[in-house]
């Protein structure tokens, strides 16, 4: 029965005390949310920690939840804010060489902390030979993207968000979002041309 319910209805049911509704909702978002965090932070252990914290936030916020927007928009926005908070707290640990992509018109300015994130360590060339070739190629292609473009691409692919929803989640304009997504797709196609 819960399988046919919308995400918002499941969350409202969980707010009313239906634990099974949360289980169904969790099953829908466990993969996409985990992949979003894992590809953004590049550290599996850190990704799992952030992933747990995001779901705890969802659980604790159930009493005040109102379906003002899609559930996917809400939870990916929580995940993104948690990611930014983490890197604000650990900004001094960021190496200087991971500066924003200079000269890239689609990359954001220095105020975008996501732009300063390093590429995932387990997807650096050092670990690439331990994985399957295609998966490695895709991961590398994503890691090579500027953080803002990767963010938009993952929100669209994993979260299924629209341009407006991505723009709202990333606090930027719709056209900027559209431009970032177009650049991300173009770069990925260029990197993975032989696999398509």
């Amino acid at each position, binding site marked *: 029965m819960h399988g046919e319910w919308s995400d918002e209805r499941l969350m409202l049911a*969980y707010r009313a*005390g239906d*634990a099974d509704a*949360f*289980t169904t909702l*969790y099953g829908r978002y*466990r*993969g996409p949310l*985990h*992949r979003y965090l*894992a590809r953004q932070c590049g550290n599996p252990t850190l990704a*799992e920690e952030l*992933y*747990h914290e995001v*779901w*705890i936030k969802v*659980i*604790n916020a*159930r*009493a005040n939840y109102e379906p003002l927007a*899609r559930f996917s928009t809400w939870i990916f926005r929580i995940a993104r804010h948690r990611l930014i908070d983490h890197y604000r707290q650990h900004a001094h640990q960021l190496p200087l060489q991971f500066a924003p992509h200079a000269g890239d018109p689609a990359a954001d300015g220095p105020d975008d902390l996501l732009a300063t994130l390093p590429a995932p360590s387990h997807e650096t060339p050092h670990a690439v030979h331990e994985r*399957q070739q*295609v*998966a490695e190629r*895709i991961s590398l292609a994503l890691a090579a993207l500027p953080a803002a473009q990767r963010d938009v691409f993952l929100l669209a*692919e*994993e979260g299924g968000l*629209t*341009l*407006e929803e991505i723009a709202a989640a990333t606090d930027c304009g719709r056209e900027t979002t*559209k431009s970032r*997504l*177009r650049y991300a*797709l173009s770069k*990925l*196609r260029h990197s*993975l041309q032989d*696999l*398509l």
Partner: protein
Amino acid sequence: MTEPLQDFPSDPPLSRLYRQFATDEPSQAIDERILAAAKAALGAGERSPGADRGRWWRRWRTPLALATTLVLTLTLSLLQQPPPGDGFVPAVPGPQVAPAPAAAPPAKFADPEARPAAAVAPPSPARTAGALSDRQAETRQQSRPASTGVGERDREVKSESVAERVSSAAAKPAPPATEPAATRSERTDVAPAVAGTVTGNRSEAPLAAAPGRVPAAALAKSRAQAVRTASVWLDEIRALRREGNLQEAERQLREFRREYPDYPLPEDLRP
């Protein structure tokens, strides 16, 4: 959601390739931790102290409000009762005061006009007798056509005799303060008789049958009457002494002290 597809930048082959190989998921352990936390949060929400307090308050607020209202009402009603008397209240003798509480409510409820006459009967017998005699005549005329029973007629006969006795007492030239002793002994009989007279034709039975339902105001009034009666009695004794009837004055004084053993005698009446 209503976004036109051509406006959304997309690359279906690239998306297909990404989803085909993007299969990594969280570990089973973290899944279990999160689901357990979700269920625990629901259980904690149900057993939260705030919720318990809310349920307790919702359950008990109505009985507590009723109990508080009841206590306040009782307290206020006790505070509103008049004091039992101003200063000294003598021990109320049976034959003098006992009929008064029974007499007051019927007089009040049966005929409001008759109440003053019955209430002031002891201190001013002459005035009371006149009022009563008029009242009895009126009462007789009112009750005669309606009353057909033997009991009613007996009550009327009794009322007539009482009215005559009171009228004869009132016809004496002596002022109320110097009333003879014989009149005083009659007066003690007047109160119950008057009560029976006034209430006999109307609603005597229900109220007379329930002496425990005497209102507090009537009780206080009867006590005040008892105080006045004692002082009037002392005035009568003084009048007897002034008239030279020392023997009768002494007898009245003894009787007074027997009925009011705790009443402090005035200086002029002490032996």
